[in-house]
């Protein structure tokens, strides 16, 4: 049995010595106790924390190796934009893998739905609505999402009702939809995209600016505080043990600090001089001697990815559907005996995956400003790798949305770090491949210890 315990919330008491996995083997016992007590009180998932630690090590490592190029607002901003597409798909891949399935077709679905959206907005819709119609982007997006959902549903039905293993169905899908992508335009690249649609890809235009970034940040902080208060209130209602008050403050402060830190970084990446100059001229602003510093703020694709992450976390943890997904992953037979319609749950998971592929396709076609045949090639592997590095167990039943998104960020960090170092593409793949294997091995060791 490779699937071992992953306590999503560390046990409130560690009666047995072996479960004190949070403590580092420090020589000073009192120090170790303090650390253990801190994690126990705040109920921070130590596994997720380990990932954040690994991420920070990678970031700082690259920062030193590149001579200070990595941890700049500019690079971090680009990193966030580059991660968005795979991160969106990784959230769905978690649910797929949790139910002991796999989806190898996500890259091809991304390519196909991207092409559909490209053709819709560049050829079909303009013929009907005229160019630059304000509704073009949403209609194109809706078309892509519907097609993605239908493809996913088709996969799900074949897997659930015809009992063909998901590996085979989606391997077939990988070939079929990549081929189908070619047939949409006989291999021609479709460009350019609709101006509004392009905002989903980020860039100077596709960012929300300083003011709105702060607004989003403050709303996020209020939401964090409200969530903590609500959870505490709920537990109080039933007289359950609660976290110590200081732990709640620490969590709230930590959450807000991270959110506001991210906003601040995004607001310290300014528009390129040329674009700022053109903007100044267009709006009749006098060009100051010191240069005009217009902050980018948070990029729209990043907002989309974070929004998807929040919605998916809600689905996975707060809805009955999510509970069923995990129950099926843990014990399909028990789920069936409990009266869960496991086949329909499977269909819904793959449908969701298809929709997420379409959203990811929107981000990546918008960013490229074109829909191409090769779009999303190898993305299935990056998506699966992100989910697995993020702690999703291939034997099913275990995984978190946040972990998968962090996994996507970690993989992208490696890649962009290596680009900054001037490492050529083939060797980048060698490194990413090795990191995947090492990450899963470390995770296996961690879980064996945690047990």
């Amino acid at each position, binding site marked *: 049995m490779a*699937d*071992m*315990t*992953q*306590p999503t*919330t560390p*046990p*409130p*008491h560690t009666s047995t010595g072996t479960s004190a996995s949070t403590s580092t083997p420090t020589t000073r016992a009192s120090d170790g106790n303090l650390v253990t007590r801190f994690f126990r009180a705040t109920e921070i998932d130590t596994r997720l924390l380990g990932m954040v630690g690994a991420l920070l090590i990678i970031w700082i490592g690259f920062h030193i190796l590149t001579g200070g190029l990595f941890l700049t607002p500019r690079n971090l901003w680009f990193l966030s934009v580059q991660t968005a597409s795979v991160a969106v798909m990784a959230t769905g891949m978690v649910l797929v893998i949790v139910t002991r399935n796999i989806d190898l077709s996500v890259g091809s679905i991304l390519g196909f739905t991207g092409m559909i959206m490209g053709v819709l907005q560049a050829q079909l819709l303009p013929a009907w609505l005229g160019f630059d119609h304000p509704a073009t982007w949403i209609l194109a997006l809706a078309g892509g999402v519907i097609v993605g959902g239908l493809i996913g549903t088709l996969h799900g039905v074949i897997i659930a009702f015809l009992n063909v293993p998901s590996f085979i169905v989606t391997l077939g899908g990988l070939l079929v939809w990549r081929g189908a992508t070619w047939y949409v335009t006989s291999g021609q690249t479709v460009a350019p995209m609709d101006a509004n649609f392009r905002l989903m890809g980020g860039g100077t235009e596709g960012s929300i600016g300083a003011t709105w970034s702060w607004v989003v940040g403050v709303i996020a902080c209020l939401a964090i505080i409200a969530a903590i208060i609500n959870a505490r209130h*709920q*537990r109080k*209602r*039933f007289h*359950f043990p609660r976290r110590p008050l200081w732990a709640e403050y620490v969590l709230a402060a930590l959450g807000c600090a991270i959110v506001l830190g991210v906003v601040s970084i995004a607001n310290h990446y300014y528009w390129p001089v040329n674009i700022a100059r053109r903007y100044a001229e267009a709006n009749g602003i006098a060009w100051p001697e010191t240069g005009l510093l217009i902050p980018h703020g948070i990029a729209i694709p990043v907002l989309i990815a974070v929004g998807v992450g929040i919605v998916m976390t*809600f689905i996975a*943890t*707060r*809805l*009955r559907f999510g*509970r069923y997904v*995990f*129950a*099926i*992953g*843990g*014990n399909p*037979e*028990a*789920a069936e*005996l*409990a*009266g*869960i319609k496991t086949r329909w749950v499977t269909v819904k998971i793959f449908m969701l995956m298809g929709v997420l592929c379409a959203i990811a396709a929107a981000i990546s076609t918008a960013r490229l400003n074109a829909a191409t045949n090769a779009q999303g090639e190898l993305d299935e592997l990056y998506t699966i790798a992100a989910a697995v590095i993020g702690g999703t167990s291939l034997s*099913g*039943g*275990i995984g978190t949305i946040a972990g998968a998104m962090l996994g996507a960020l970690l993989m992208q960090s490696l890649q962009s770090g290596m680009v900054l170092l001037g490492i050529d593409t083939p060797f980048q793949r060698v490194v990413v491949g090795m990191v995947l294997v090492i990450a899963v091995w470390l995770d296996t060791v961690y879980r064996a210890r945690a*047990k």
Partner: protein
Amino acid sequence: MTDIPNTTQAPSATHPHPLVEMKNISISFGGIHAVDDASVDLYPGEVVALLGHNGAGKSTLIKVLSGAYRRDEGDILINGEPAEIRNPRDAKKFGIETIYQTLAVADNVDAAANLYLGRELRTKWGTLDDVAMEASTREVMGRLNPNFRRFKEPVKALSGGQRQSVAIARAILFDARILIMDEPTAALGPQETAQVGDLIKQLKREGIGIFLISHDIHDVFDLADRVFVMKNGKVVGHARTGDVTKDEVLGMIILGKVPPGAVPGPGAMKVA
């Protein structure tokens, strides 16, 4: 065993009808009589063990009660009223819950999630009401197993006995009056077996009737008030556990020989 004489002595006095009465049940698969003219009954607060070799028909008989199989002949009476049980949902309506040998719990989620699996409580927003589910889980588990503290951990982290209590809690959470337990202690160590034994006694006190199915007499003899022994699809006989010895029951299982303390059934060995 006579440790609980009250419930074993006078069930018929306090309860005019048995909780369950299965009368002359027959079921055959392709000409083979898996169960042939079998009758068993169960009173509230009573533990009845159904013993026999593999293939003796005990599981098939009980699956008629849990709704997994449909009988060819015979009647089922619940509280003296004829009951039509066509599928597991019907059985649940009559308060019949089955605990499977495999326990049928989802290892990776916590006790509350397992207890409410498929019947989750929801808030008015349609989201899972985890706190309410945990609250009633704490209440039910407190009744069954007061030492149970690990509400937030996945069931995988629990011991076999604790998992068993989760499975039982799941069954009784929805007002089960009749509990069917298939080999309840087969996979457990001695300490955990004792824990399950305590659990069963607790359920008896609450007036729940329990069928224990086992092919191993040692597993269930001490827990049961009465035993029914089956052989080749027929009931060899039944007896109060106080009136017979383990060896005599073993004789019933292996040879079909009915001792003096037992009531012979249709499957009893004919004395030449």
